[in-house]
């Protein structure tokens, strides 16, 4: 008897009430891909390479990201440009190997590589996941990534 009261007369209406309540609330699901969720500032998505204001590349091909990379996903070949500066002639990330740990952006002394908020890069060919320097430079968002500030702050402490 007591059980009947507890489950049918109390709990059931309570459940209906909760459901009913949500009819009048804003839905939590998004209409992906029409709508997209804003990512947390530290979200680690597809990599991009930064440039200076004058358009020159920041990456000097120092190799620190590649040494920091636990997945051995980064390959690069340095070269000398006409000004006598060091730059990366080849810079590739194998996105299938990458585990999106973000060590590369932490290691980079030139603030050149970042993991952006992009996550839509599925493809049907393995070769397409070898992400080249040109792609990474083009992928650069116009807005500065807020994470940069965090990195700088952390650097100052250590």
């Amino acid at each position, binding site marked *: 008897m007591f059980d009947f009261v507890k489950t049918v007369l109390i709990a059931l209406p309570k459940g209906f009430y909760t459901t009913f309540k949500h009819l009048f609330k804003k839905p939590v699901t998004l209409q992906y891909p029409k709508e997209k969720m804003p990512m947390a500032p530290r979200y680690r998505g597809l990599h991009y390479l930064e440039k200076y204001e004058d358009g020159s590349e920041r990456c*000097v091909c*120092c190799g620190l990201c590649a040494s920091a990379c636990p997945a051995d996903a980064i390959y690069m070949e340095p070269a000398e440009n006409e*000004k006598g500066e*060091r730059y990366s002639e080849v810079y590739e990330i194998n996105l299938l190997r990458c585990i999106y740990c973000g060590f590369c952006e932490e290691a980079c002394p030139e603030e050149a590589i970042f993991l952006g908020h992009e996550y839509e890069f599925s493809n049907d060919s393995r070769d397409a996941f070898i992400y080249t320097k040109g792609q990474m430079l083009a992928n650069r968002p116009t807005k500065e990534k807020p994470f940069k500030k965090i990195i700088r702050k952390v650097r100052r402490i250590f």
Partner: protein
Amino acid sequence: MSDDSNNINLTIDGQQVSVPRGTTVLEAARSIRIDIPTFCWHPKLKPAGSCRICYVEIEKARTLMVSCATDVAPDMVVHTASEKVLQGRKAVLEFMLMNHPLDCPTCDKGGECDLQNLTFKHGVDDSRFDFKKYRHIRDKNSTFDDLRIGSEIIRNQNRCILCYKCVRANKDIFGEQDLGAYQRGNITEINTPPGEQVDSLYSGNLVEICPVGALTNTDWRYKIRVWNTQTVDSVCSYCADGCNLTLWKDKQKIYRATSRRNDNIDEGWICDVGRYGYQVPMAEDRLTTPLIKKGDSQVPATWEEALGLISEKFKKIKDERGGVCIGGLISPNLDSLSLHTFSKFFRMVLNSNNVDFRAGYKMLPEKADDLYSKLTSLPFKISDIEKSDLILVLDSDLTKEHPIVNLRVRKAVTQKNASLFALNPITTQTGGIATDEMVYNIGTLHALLNGLCISLIDQNLTQYENARDLKNKLSPNTIEEASRISGIDVARINSLAKAITEVKNISLIAGELLTSSINREQLSGAIINLCLLAGIFDKGQVGVLSQAANSKGAEKLAVMPHLSERSILKIKQIWDKYPDNDGLALDQMIRSSIKEELDSMFIIGSNLMLEYPDGAVVKEGLEKLDFLVVADICETETTQIADVVLPLSTWVEYDSSFVNLESVEQKFKAAIKPVGFSLPAYQIINKIAQGFKTPLFETIDELIPEIKTLLQPDDSQNSFENCAIEYIEEKQNPEFEIPLLITNELHHFGYFTEKSNSLSNFCSEAFLEISPGLAEKLDVKNGSIIRVESEVGKINLPVKISEYIDNDVVRAYRNFSASPVNILQMRKRNIDRVKLTVVEGT
């Protein structure tokens, strides 16, 4: 230990240590494995005390002391890691970093930089320096401050910590004046005098000893990070000094070569040919597959086809006309395994003694057990040079032939007060520090040596009992006559004779001009006479230096047609047989080929068309052969005319060894896999032997004991007797009167050095060196084109006026394929003579 008055006891970090007087605190600490960081200290340089990172605390001393410049004293108590020392080090680092740029990401030293490592270790992580850093600017428009101070050296002054190691080594060790420190204080810079470049043969060492990234070289610059490379122990494959190298490689590419210090040989210095020579195996145009001549062209083939053809042809020749109708030539720049298998193949399989390695020599006296080989079998140690009080250099431009022997000689003279006498047909760089450099008339060395012997006898300076008897055997036999012929004053000859008898230890060094001379027996005899009279055999060493990386090995491994009794015995011992025919030396092979007695030649690693000192004859000889097999690493003039071309691996592609001029066998390891389908020479030879159903080995381990037996030094003592020496003037054609000397270019000794970009940056084309006097007479300036004509050939060469030539000799350089100077030479002539005409329009 205290009974030894020369030893001093002291305490370092609580440990007792006893070291000889005069040791520095730093060395004492390192001897018991206590490490003290250093920047400006270098084992082979005098301490400078300029960086002060090596601070230690010495009890009772008022301040911290620099350990690299403080000698040990009795009962010293040293602390190397006390609080005060650590603080001192940190302060020194802070000062160094004051103006140091944050270049680590772009700096090639990153990862192996002493400054980086110490900064990391001592935790200097913050800067208290709030002012703007001083920046050395190359030019205002450039954001980068790199300045090229040599063909291969780039300087970034901002990174320099002013340890002065480069300047000191350049001056004290290499004797060059082209690098110095200019200005003072913050703006001090390491630079060359205006208009000059650091282009000595040793320039790469400066980069290697720089503790930071201030000096970098172009070959390593921006190519790879040091932590991505692996190191391989190797040995240089160019000259006979046999410097030890470390090769830095990743996958199939070598990125640089550095010295692997061996105090018996190189003391941590290598020449630029050794340093940049690794670029030769990396050349783009290596041969990668066998080629077989079909009609007029050579078409790629498989190994099976090529080897099948070779075995078949060789077999046919052997069966029909005998193995003696095949001649063999192998380059002395190849390893011991290959040399040994080559000799084994000819002697065991073809039953012929026609093997030789001396491509660049003129017609040699063809006799086993000659005076020359007696002289070369004498023991000689590079490290013993510095023990001598007097060094006598005969017929050798040491810098160009033996850069590391040259450094020892320089060390003996400048640091150990030895006196140097150089007897050469032209002025040499080494001669610059000589007590007396005698520039004799070319081709008259034995006359001059006769004069020296007579001077010893006449002045009664000799203990040799048969002296009088010897004097009668000499011609010229008066000192005046010798002086007239050689052009050296009597007084100078006499004073040299005196100097020789006054000292306790003598090193006599003879070089290439003697080794490859037609008069080699006479010259060797003259040297023996001198050694007997002056007692050099008892009080010093005689080194008749071999030329290429493995020339000594080739001699010992019997890659010669005429062998001494002892070598024949050894060969019979290891192989149980020895062909009883008389072998042909290279020039005999070529002559036989012209007479159509020789049918075929098998050449490995040697560009005979360019090397043989008689271009016309060698061309005819090789073209008359029925069947020519050439194995080489790149296409050459010789491979072009071959019937079968085989791709050869270079020394960085397999494990083997070289025997240096001291007869020391040094092993080296493979750094990369064979390029393309190329194979090491010993494998090629073995595969051909397999075609005869008589393989030479199953695994190379079988060859090791054989090589060991052959390389064993002879214990039997050589006894020397005096010899009759006669100087005969060579007949000349009055039309061609200017003597021509053909030697190695400074950065191009050893074959294929043209393929190395760095070495070609130093010098990329052949030229003719003439004296300023002659230049004036001909009215030419640097770069003018001159036609050099001899009795047999002519060639156009650009002129370079040289301070090293002050008589009427002209000098040209071999090893440039675009200018084959060997077409001017004649193999029967001791001295080649030419006439010069200026080509109009220059």
